[in-house]
């Protein structure tokens, strides 16, 4: 990664090329992975999105690489997922994407995930509360009052971290 970073420092074209290639390659892989996770063929997803199988095939091809925001939103609707499109530090992007994590490609549909999400109200409980962060980068303070049952994520082989807090929010 270091030499790629050093080339990025010297040439803006290297930076632009990395962002372009990683975005379209990563998206193409993830679209295919989620479609398969949903048990859909390209034709099946095309039907859900009211488009053609050839269009879905292009979306899964990094060589095509032209994604409109509307298409991405339509995909998030079809997959019943969220979608984050935002600008980030290129240094962070390089760090997080240089070696991709294939486990992060699949995403649960909201309707599959929702039954396992609960909310903790601090006024109700006077003693220990268990917070479970589904994403290792998520801190407990990022998901206040949320309590997700452990069993759900164990069965899905999700990476998890658990923190137990008392009322003073002191880790035990």
């Amino acid at each position: 990664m270091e030499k790629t970073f050093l080339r990025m420092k010297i040439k803006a074209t290297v930076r632009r090329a990395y962002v372009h290639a990683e975005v379209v390659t990563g998206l193409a892989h993830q679209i295919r992975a989620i479609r398969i996770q949903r048990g859909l063929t390209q034709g099946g997803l095309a039907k859900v999105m009211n488009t053609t199988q050839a269009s879905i095939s292009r979306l899964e091809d990094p060589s095509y690489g032209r994604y409109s925001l509307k298409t991405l939103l339509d995909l998030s609707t079809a997959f019943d997922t969220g979608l984050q499109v935002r600008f980030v530090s290129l240094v962070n992007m390089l760090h997080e994407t240089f070696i991709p994590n294939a486990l992060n490609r699949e995403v649960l549909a909201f309707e599959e995930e929702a039954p396992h999400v609960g909310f903790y109200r601090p006024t109700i409980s006077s003693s220990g509360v268990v917070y479970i962060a589904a994403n290792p980068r998520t801190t407990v303070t990022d998901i206040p009052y949320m309590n997700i049952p452990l069993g759900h994520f164990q069965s899905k082989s999700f990476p998890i971290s658990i923190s137990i807090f008392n009322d003073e929010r002191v880790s035990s």
Partner: protein
Amino acid sequence: MLLWCFKTYVSPNGRRDAQHTIDRYNDSDQAFFSRAVAHLATTTIDQWHEPHGKKLKNEKPLFEVRYKANRCATRALGFFGSDGASFIIVLICTHKQDIYDPPDAFKTAHRRISQVLSGSAQTVPLQIDGEDFPSYED
């Protein structure tokens, strides 16, 4: 997590054609090639499907990495090493309407695979920007 390290073919007389082809790519082509490799490096064999990678029919043990370079559909032909941890690129060619260029690409690829397996040809780690790629150190 990396599942595969990538290597390139070195001929019995020391030529590294595949690596030299990659080294000559412009910034954009090199980025697309390296990202194609990076994503496949974390992908199990059973998920090496079109349009990212492909097991070549009737050409066992050949697989291809699919990407675009010089505005052409390009294929890095190779095979999975017996160590279960490496993919060895033996040849880079182009592909248009089911025609591979050079026309004897498969024949050459199979010959090179035989050379690697017999030990008459060597392999070295694939390099991007002069460093092994993808690297476990990253």
